[in-house]
């Protein structure tokens, strides 16, 4: 695996204007350069009690028509003297890595966005209306598939439409026996009420007959965006 640094910003003074690591300025980025990226934040000078900074990763689940939203964040508070490492993510439709000061004093940070490899999108669903019927995220219908495209996958969901009282569940199925196996649930994730971030799954190795699905368990039918990405 050839690891490269896509964006390295050393000793940047972080103020209360959010800083884009991709652009190297306070102008927000919406990068469509796809890849598996990892964001590392290092407080280059000593943080002290009372300091608070928010580092976060932004992405769009859908390329055309999607909205860039927060994928994850972490607050660096008080006297942190460790670098903070975000999980590797498959980013492609409009990403940015950002940091902003929430407290009184600016501090210098070393910021690095490292590219671990290539990724691509295998399936996407744009504005898929999700009801109480389990829907395939590969086909967009209630007919569940047994996909045999092998790879390391990451599911992304934009559940911004969810509201109080809603409950949705995403699932990943896989066969283990390639010849006669039964597709079974490998993992599932549940979402309640309004969501603060877009969802991404952990990297999941799929091979023998897999599917990813979504279903509404309670509340109102909602339109969601989904993207199934893989390391390519």
């Amino acid at each position, binding site marked *: 695996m050839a690891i490269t640094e896509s964006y390295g910003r050393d000793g940047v003074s972080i103020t209360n204007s959010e800083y884009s690591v991709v652009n190297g300025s306070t102008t927000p980025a919406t990068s469509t350069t796809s890849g598996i990226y990892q964001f590392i934040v290092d407080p280059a000078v000593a943080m002290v009690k009372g300091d608070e900074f928010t580092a976060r990763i932004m992405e769009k689940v859908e390329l055309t028509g999607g909205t860039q939203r927060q994928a994850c964040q972490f607050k660096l508070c008080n006297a942190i003297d460790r670098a903070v*490492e975000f999980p590797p993510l498959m980013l492609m439709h409009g990403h940015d890595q950002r940091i902003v000061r929430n407290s009184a004093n600016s501090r210098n940070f070393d910021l690095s966005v490292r590219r671990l490899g290539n990724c691509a999108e295998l399936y996407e669903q744009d504005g898929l209306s999700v009801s109480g019927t389990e829907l395939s995220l590969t086909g967009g219908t209630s007919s569940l598939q047994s996909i045999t495209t092998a790879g390391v996958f990451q599911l992304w969901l934009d559940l911004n439409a969810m509201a109080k009282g809603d409950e949705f569940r995403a699932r990943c199925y896989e066969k283990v026996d390639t010849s006669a196996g039964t597709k079974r649930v490998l993992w599932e994730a549940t979402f309640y009420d309004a969501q603060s971030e877009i969802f991404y799954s952990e990297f999941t190795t799929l091979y023998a007959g897999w599917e990813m699905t979504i279903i509404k368990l309670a509340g109102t039918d909602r339109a969601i965006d989904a993207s199934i990405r893989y390391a390519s």
Partner: protein
Amino acid sequence: MRIAPFKGGLRYQDNFTSAGSSAPGTTVPAHATVNSSKGTVTELLASLDFDCYELFIYCTGYGAAAATSKGFLSIYVGAATEQVLIPDLLIGGAGGAGLGGKRWRFPIYIPAGTRVSAALGGERTGVNANVAIMAVGGTMSPHVVCGSKVVTYGLGTQPDATNITPGASGAEGSFTEITASTTENHIAVMPSWQPPTDTTLNARIYSVDIGIGSATEAIIGRLEGPYIYQTNASEQCSTDGYDGVVYADIPSGSRLAARVSNNGTNDGSGADRGQVALHCLSL
């Protein structure tokens, strides 16, 4: 530091009484006549709605004034004949209204759709206790490192466990062996403590430490004092401190021990000054 993102929400399922109640959970009978046997296995949850990664257990109402109540509670899974999942938690003195009962929190995997039950027994035969549980899970990956099996060490002829005389009046006690050799690898451990057979308990605070290895034992997790139990003058006992496991690498064949400290004079008589069992979690 590596960030572990939180996505979606944890799911919860329980059998607690929805409104305020002096008897939360499900009524579970002790054996009618035999203090070393459990009563009927009683269903707590008919079917888990999701994969459970953590199970909270709360037992109340077994202790009673002027009564001795060493006892044991097991959690089961599956349809009859049920399979023991968490064996022999010590419920001696488990208090009701006015004293908080006994609590345990196991990071344990129980698949969705599983029926969960309980049975108990002890010195108070022919009575009921209340058992409430809460299952936590439903996320893509477990929110805690969870195992799949619990082994309990230190049991005697039920309802007895291992007698340990506490260090009195704030003194630290001496380690007493709970098991000479664990039967498999474990990743975590937590204790149960129950008061002695004594119909006139005093209000006391007890602290339990867990040791590993031969004397001088190392304290598991280098963690002294979080496991606290309280007794009152109505012969009741509660879990007052930490109610979860301590994670540690406990290789098969390990010797485990425990020691107890008490803030006052010891209750009971002879060697019967309170009892400990250790519940060890396996992957």
